[in-house]
């Protein structure tokens, strides 16, 4: 039995509305407890320390086929001369380095947002080989021929719900994501664009319909995380209109719009590229069930990787270095890996940087917006402390804006925004809010019975970037895993999953489909709990679902 006492720390615990209040925290057997009657194994003096729950990244590409393609494609960037962990580049780290770098920043749970059902074994294996953190994945739907065929034949919502629930169970995922709804499938039939109200040539259905049906399925199944949506027209100037239409497609049901920065572009001005962050954040602020993560762009080399093969193929001419890969995958998805270098000499890249920051700063409620770079699409996750400083320090932000190689001052309202995020708001957007939106009732909190995933920062460090980059202690499941930047213990987190109930009749239909059209058998598509623990190597934790009905 391990017991810990964190003494005299300043607590930031948004779920309990505790902000910067001195309090002792007690830990026993991996959980936070109110008090300890036993002998305390270790007391950590937290005077002049800030204590927050472990941070949660709800959208980071850390495991799966496309990540591995990028690792192998871009070997020339694996040149870590510091011999720090291994050679891999920060934007395409190995699984070991991913875990080490996240935990050293105080992140204790991370979620892979693009798990292709057919590739779920690989995604989970990679995440199982990622130390320390709890993890989970969102299964991709909405471009799979089975679902599109169901929709085109006018299937009842209940049948779609059953299919969605089956996929969640089969893939051991915690949520559902749709990428460029219908567009990836349409690309396989040689369509090069698909707008929200445009019919796909093959199935004669619109992205709007796909979003509506999937959002409803996720809601009715009671899956805590709303439908995770990568909108149509990724990166296309003027795409804010289709983003707003996609939000409307959910018809008021909960929906999470991901990397919204990449979907907040206008097409005004002499360069036909402008910020539409004001229009987008107006929606975020007024629609109650809407959340988003930003996908902030920061300057430097990275690799873009997406299920959106339609748009990745369209953008391959921007590859830097000049190489890329797109793939059509198993009649259910696609992927595209295009290396990219964001530079402040590019008007478009500089404005992307500003649009992301505008989106953060114009969104009023930190419960509705999450800190992401869409790792590694906008920048590697290791840049989060820098991003936090940009949000918390106006003069730092303004200085960087002034120093950009291209002048975008007439194209951004960034300088007019006076807001500086507070520590409480940062704690909300990186801890309590993602825990809530994922249904992780035991995480993102310092409540009694919560998982003892805790990060301790040194408040004597005045530079917040430095402070957030190097917590003094990180505790995972009650074990001190990081102390003064050094790894003290290795732990292996669990995989967070949901398993909503469904009518098993759908499996008969799926079996027929698989037998006739697929190249593997349905039983081999599904990953069992035993396979997760015995073969893949990760124990699961089931997050509760509670069915709802739309009247």
């Amino acid at each position: 039995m391990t017991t810990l006492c964190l003494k005299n720390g300043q607590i930031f615990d948004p779920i309990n509305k505790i902000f910067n209040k001195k309090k002792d925290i007690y830990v026993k057997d991996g959980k936070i407890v109110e008090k300890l009657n036993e002998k305390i194994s270790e007391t950590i003096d937290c005077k002049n320390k800030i204590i927050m729950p472990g941070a949660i990244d709800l959208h980071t590409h850390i495991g799966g086929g496309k990540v591995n393609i990028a690792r192998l494609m871009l070997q020339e960037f694996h040149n870590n001369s510091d011999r720090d962990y291994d050679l891999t580049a920060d934007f395409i780290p190995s699984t070991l380095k991913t875990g080490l770098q996240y935990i050293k920043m105080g992140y204790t749970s991370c979620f892979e947002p693009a798990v292709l059902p057919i590739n779920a074994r690989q995604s989970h294996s990679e995440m199982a080989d990622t130390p320390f953190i709890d993890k989970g994945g969102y299964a991709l739907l909405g471009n799979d021929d089975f679902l599109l065929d169901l929709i085109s034949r006018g299937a009842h919502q209940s049948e779609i719900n059953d299919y969605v629930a089956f996929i969640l169970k089969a893939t051991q995922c915690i949520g559902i994501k749709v990428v460029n709804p219908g567009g990836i499938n349409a690309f396989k039939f040689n369509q090069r664009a698909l707008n929200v109200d445009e019919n796909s040539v093959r199935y004669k259905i619109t992205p709007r319909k796909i979003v509506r049906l999937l959002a409803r399925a996720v809601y009715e199944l009671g899956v805590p995380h709303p439908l995770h949506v990568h909108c149509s027209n990724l990166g296309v100037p003027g795409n804010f209109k289709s983003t707003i239409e996609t939000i409307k497609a959910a018809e008021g049901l909960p929906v999470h719009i991901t990397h919204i920065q990449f979907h907040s572009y206008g097409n005004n001005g002499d360069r036909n590229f402008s910020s539409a962050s004001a229009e987008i954040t107006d929606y975020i602020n007024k629609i109650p069930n809407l959340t988003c993560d930003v996908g902030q762009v920061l300057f430097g080399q990275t690799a873009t990787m997406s299920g959106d093969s339609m748009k990745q193929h369209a953008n391959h001419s921007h590859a830097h270095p000049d190489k890329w890969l797109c793939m059509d995958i198993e009649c259910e998805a696609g992927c595209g890996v295009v290396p990219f270098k964001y530079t402040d000499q590019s008007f478009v890249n500089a404005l992307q940087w500003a649009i992301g920051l505008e989106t953060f700063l114009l969104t009023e409620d930190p419960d509705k917006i999450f800190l992401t770079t869409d790792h590694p699409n906008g920048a590697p996750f290791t840049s989060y402390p820098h991003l936090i400083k940009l949000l918390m320090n106006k003069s730092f932000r303004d200085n960087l804006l002034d120093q950009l190689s291209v002048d975008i001052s007439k194209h951004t309202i960034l300088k007019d925004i006076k807001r500086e995020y507070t520590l409480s708001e940062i704690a909300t957007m990186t801890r309590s809010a993602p825990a809530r939106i994922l249904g992780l009732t035991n995480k993102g909190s310092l409540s009694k019975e919560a998982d003892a995933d805790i990060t301790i920062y040194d408040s004597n460090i005045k530079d917040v970037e430095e402070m957030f980059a190097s917590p003094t202690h990180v505790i995972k499941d009650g074990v001190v895993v990081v102390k003064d930047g050094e790894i003290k213990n290795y732990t292996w987190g669990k995989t967070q999953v949901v398993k909503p109930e469904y009518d098993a009749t759908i499996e008969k239909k799926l079996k027929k489909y698989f037998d006739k059209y697929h190249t593997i058998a349905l039983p081999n598509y599904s990953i069992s709990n035993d396979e997760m623990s015995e073969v893949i190597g990760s124990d699961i934790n089931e997050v509760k679902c509670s069915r709802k009905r739309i009247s």
Partner: protein
Amino acid sequence: MSKISDSLNHKNIVCPFCSLHCDDLEIDVHDNKLYVKSNVPKSCAYKYEKLNLAKFKDMVTTVKGKPCEPKKAYQYSKQLIKKSKETVLLNSSSDVNVTREVLSTASKVNAIVDHVNSSIFLKNISIYQRRGYMATSLTEIKNKSDVIIVFSNNLFKTYPRLMEKFLATKNSFSVNSKKKEIYVIGNKKNNIKDCNIRDKRITYVDYNNRNITKLLNSLISKKNESSISNKVFNKLLASIETSKYLSVLWATSEFESYKECDEIIYNISAYVVSLNKTSRAACLSLSGNDGDVSFTQTLGWMTGFPSRIKFTGNFFEYDKDANNAIQLINSGNSDLVIHLNSLSEKKLVLNKKNKNIVIGRPCTKFNIEPDVFISCGIPGIDFKGHIFRTDNVVSLPLTSLRMSHSRSTQEILREILE
């Protein structure tokens, strides 16, 4: 718990022996013997049923060719490892979990990790390390391809069910499968013999695949300068021009002996990429019968590199030339090679210049007797596991079908490095 004498019927079994990993096998197990009930080529069924012979079931350990107790083989292996100054862990065939263990092991003994097929799969990876690449997978080909080109000299011998199960299929939901056009280009005699399918959708074209670039240039210029007859060439050209989704398949291993190998695979890829300006087309390079894909993928996520890494303590370095295991062995720069062969029936090539420990499936063949041989169980027969299919994106579960007398490769590695 089941007993050896139990009779069991297993359905939807994934075959671990070729990288198509067909998963529609039905296998009966009586008295711990395997009987394939599915209607599959004899060569596929035999891979299972030969394992019923006693010599394939019992655990065998030898030191210098002489049978011995496992303990002695482990002890001697430990001595060899302790004495070694440059150990190579050479993977000859394995699944994901063996590869995971190999990486863990390598860091304990500062070993070089490589795969016998590295030179081939590094060529495949080099395509997208240098230029663009459009890839596809087997279910896409089955359902969306109206035109399929297969460059093959012996491909259907290596992948016995490729045509029947994935290409010339009865059902495709988005194209009329009856109207599919399949061109098999290469050694016509071999292809007809190995395919064993008479199907009017298939056109066998006799061609020297060393000259694929010439054929591609002819297709681009629409002027036949290849040795293919104008009639067949024009038919092929018309099929490509009207196709909605063209798939092009090959196995780089078949081109490896050609000096034009790199040029050929690069030109196929570039041609397919160019077709995507106006239509849809994609490539599938077949590989992985020796667990290559599982090895590459696993190393990829654990190290960022596909093979040829050397551990020094907890750190590792990649060098595709300096850590080329085959070259190291041939040049006498390794004093100990630990061969890992849990799947393949191919004869292992050992070099007498160095000591050899083989952890291999029962009855693994060698050119010379290894210093130590320890038989291991086969993933998918004796142990559970996880393996990648040839298209790199589909990974399948391997199950345990029989009670095994052998230990897994992972257990043996842990034992000799204790």
